[in-house]
């Protein structure tokens, strides 16, 4: 198996783990980390598959897209963390599970 396939498949695995975590984990920080997992998975797939050129020189277009994507992911993470922090300071909870009130009440 060539190395670009390993990168791409690991990227797919990271994306799936991120999706699972995003659904299962009720805590906001876990959800934010999960979306970062998903993003990193997408980047690995793009970088891995951009390396299939016959010349051996990686395709610059996926690289540029990943570079753009990293900045957007950083921005998304910063905004999510700011919202999570605000939510925590208003409610005292980091958990956004729907069953929370029933459990407390």
């Amino acid at each position, binding site marked *: 198996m060539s190395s670009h396939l390993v990168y791409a498949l690991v990227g797919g695995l990271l994306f799936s783990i991120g999706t699972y975590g995003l659904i299962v984990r009720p805590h906001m920080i876990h959800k934010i980390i999960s979306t970062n997992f998903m993003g990193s998975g997408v980047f690995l797939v793009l970088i891995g598959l951009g390396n299939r050129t016959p010349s051996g020189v990686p395709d610059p277009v996926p690289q540029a897209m990943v570079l753009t994507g990293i*900045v957007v992911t950083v*921005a998304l993470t910063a905004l999510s963390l700011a919202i999570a922090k605000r939510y925590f300071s208003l409610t005292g909870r980091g958990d956004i599970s729907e069953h929370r009130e029933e459990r407390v009440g």
Partner: protein
Amino acid sequence: MRDRLPGSQLIPLVTGAGLFALVTRAILSLPGESAGLSVRVTETAAENGISNVVTAVLLDFRGYDTLLEIAVLMLVTVAVFSLRETTMSPTPLSERPGPVLGALTRTVIPVMLLVAGHFVWIGSSRPGGAFQAGAVIGAAGILLALSGYSRPKWVGPRAISWVLSIGLLVFVGVAVYPVLLGEELLQYPAESRKALILVIEALLTLSIGASLVSLFIASASPRVQGDRE
């Protein structure tokens, strides 16, 4: 504790595994070798005088992506500012550092700024560019904030807003100017293409660095007065 619904674990597990299977199938179905756009990009980039192909893609061929990306970064900075709970007073985030951290900071910061400038300058021919340089400037600013430095009194909020937005403003200006002359959006004039890209990169570096530092400072907890009862 409330009992978990039956299937509440199963459905996400199946979703995750199913996604992995689909992605794997898609990846394996691709041809083993594909030149993609690399040949065309390399040829065209060399004609335009930008020999670093990634920079050429970012600012020349797909400049629209980069433009919108800076817009996203600015929007997020504004959003995080509006969510913050403290005022942007020039109070340091932490105590004055000890001798080791202080000496390290004073030594490292000028080097970081030099590295950032180097990244901008070589960005057109070798690995480097506005985002890498902006990240280094951002790291330098965060290091300063964590070692107890704050912005000088003469740097007001207005100056910060200008530094934050100048990259986007100039980029939009350069992008829209050809449209006024009846050409395409982001169509750089051929003779000044390289100089324009360098100017945009330099200003973008400032804005990216400033917004990374602002994101960090705006979302950081104030040192003492932040304790809730």
